[in-house]
C-alpha cells in the first residue's frame, strides 16, 4: 500500500476479502487466536507479494493459502507460549469479554474452546478439511477450489478426517455416554481444567 498502483490493488484486495479472510482465520485458529493481528499479518504478506501474484490460482485460493500458513505459524507459536507461560485464557481469562452480552459470549467461547481442543488433536490436514466442510459449510467444489484439489479428493479427505475425528472424540469422552453434547462439552471443560 505504498505507491499508487499497489495502493489501488491492495485496497481493493483488502476491502473485497477482509471479511472472508477474517472468517477463515477465526475458523482455522479457533477462539484462542488473536484475530485482528492474524488478519493484519495475512494482508501484510498478501500486499507485499501482490506484485508477484501471477494468477495461477484464484485470489481466494491464494489468500486462503496465506491465511492457513499464518494461522498454523501462530498456533505453533501459541503452543510454545502456552508451554512457557500458560494459555491466553489462563493469563487474561479474568478480563471482561468484549461485546454486548458478556455472559453469552463467554459461554460461546467456552463451547468453541472445548471443540477446538478436540480438533487440535488432529493433523493439520484433517483439521483444515473438517473446519471447511463442517464449520464453514462449504461444498466439495468450494473446498477443492480453496485447497487447489479435485472435489472428489476433497470428499475422500473429508471421509478420512471424519473417521479420525470420531476416534479422537471417543478417546476424549469415551464411547458410551455421549448423547448430550452440551453435557459432554461441560464435562470436557471440567476434565481439561
Amino acid at each position: 500500500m505504498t505507491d499508487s498502483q499497489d495502493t489501488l490493488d491492495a485496497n481493493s484486495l483488502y476491502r473485497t476479502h477482509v471479511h472472508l479472510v477474517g472468517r477463515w482465520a477465526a475458523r482455522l485458529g479457533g477462539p484462542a487466536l488473536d484475530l485482528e493481528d492474524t488478519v493484519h499479518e495475512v494482508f501484510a504478506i498478501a500486499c507485499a507479494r501482490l506484485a508477484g501474484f501471477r494468477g495461477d490460482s484464484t485470489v481466494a485460493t491464494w489468500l486462503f493459502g496465506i491465511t492457513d500458513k499464518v494461522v498454523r505459524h501462530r498456533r505453533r507459536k501459541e503452543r510454545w507460549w502456552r508451554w512457557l507461560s500458560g494459555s491466553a485464557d489462563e493469563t487474561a481469562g479474568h478480563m471482561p469479554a468484549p461485546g454486548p452480552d458478556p455472559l453469552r459470549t463467554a459461554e460461546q467461547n467456552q463451547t468453541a474452546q472445548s471443540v477446538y481442543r478436540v480438533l487440535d488433536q488432529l493433523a493439520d490436514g484433517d483439521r483444515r478439511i473438517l473446519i471447511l466442510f463442517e464449520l464453514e459449510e462449504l461444498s466439495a467444489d468450494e473446498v477443492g477450489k480453496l485447497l487447489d484439489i479435485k472435489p472428489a479428493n476433497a470428499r475422500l479427505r473429508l471421509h478420512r478426517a471424519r473417521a479420525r475425528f470420531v476416534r479422537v472424540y471417543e478417546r476424549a469422552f469415551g464411547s458410551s455416554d455421549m448423547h448430550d453434547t452440551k453435557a459432554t462439552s461441560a464435562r470436557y471443560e471440567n476434565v481439561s481444567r
Partner: protein
Amino acid sequence: MSAAKEDSRSEPKSERLQQSLAFLHQARAVRGLHTAQVERIERRLRRHSHRPRRLVMVPVVATLGLLVVAGAAFAVAKGGLRSLPIVGPLFAPAASTSDSKPEKNRHPALPKATVDKAAAPVPSALAPAPIQRAPLAALQPTRVIASTLEKTSEPAAHAVRAEGPRPHTLALRDPKASHQPPRMAVAPETPAPLPVGKEENPIVAESRSFASVLEPWHRTHNPGTALALLDAHERRYPSGHMRLESHILRAEIYLAQGREGEVLKVLDAIALSGIPRGRELQTVRGELRIKAGRCADGKRDLGEVLEKSMSDALAKRAAQAIAHCP
C-alpha cells in the same frame, strides 16, 4: 444374517459420527471482524506496508553467519580441516584417529592403551572352541605381540605420523616366511637425526628415534632392517624411557623370524603384570614357556590371565595351552 449384523454395526457407527459431528457443529458460531477492527487493520496496513519485524533479524543472522564462516576459514588456515570443531574428526584419516589423544594421557615410558578386544586379534588357528591337546607348534603368539606393540608404541607412532602414512594394522606374519631373504634390500637407516641447533626434549627425541624404527618395520616388514635400526636406537638410548616398547618390538621381530627362544628370552626379562595389555603379553609368554617345557612358569602366566576372565578369547587360548601341560 450377515446383513443384519452389518446393519447393527454400522448403526452405532453412524450414530457415533452424528454425535461427534453435533459436538463439532457447536463451534459454528464464529466471531467475525467488527467494523472497527477492519478499520484498525487497514490503518495498520497503511503504516506498515511490509512486515518490519523480520528485518530486525536479518543483520543478526548475517553477523552470525559471517562469524561462523570467518571462524571456519581461520580454523582451516591454521590447522586444516581437522581442526574444525565438531566436524573436524570427519576429515581425519582412519589410521590416525588416535592423534587426538592428549599427550598427558600417555605414560612417558609406557603409553596408556585402552584394551580394545576387537583390536587384539586372536589367531584363528589357535582358537578352536574345545580344549584339546593340540600340537604345541600350533601356538603362534605373533598377532598378540603385534597388536600389543601397536598399542604400546603410541608416542613413537605419533611422531611418525607427521612424516608419512602408517599401515592400519600389523599383518600376521608367518614365522616361516621370515626365513626367506628380505623382500627389499633396504639399507639400515640411522634413527631420526636430532634437530640442529635446537635442544629437543629427551623424551620427544627418544620417541622420534623409536618411531623411525617402528615406521619402516610397519611399512616394509623387513626384520633385518628393523633389527639393525632397533640396535642403533638401543645403543643411542640404552636406558631410555621407551625400553619396554623396544623390547616388545624386538620380541615381535624375533617372532616374525621364528626365533621363539629369543622371543621368550626377551619376554622373560620383562615384568608383564600391571602394564597395559600385559594380559595379552602374558598369554604369549605363557604359551611360549609351555612350548619350551617350562610348564610351571607358563601355568603361572596363564593362571593370571585366567584370573581376570574365564570367557574371552585370551582365556580360551590360555586354557588350551595349559591343557598341554601334564
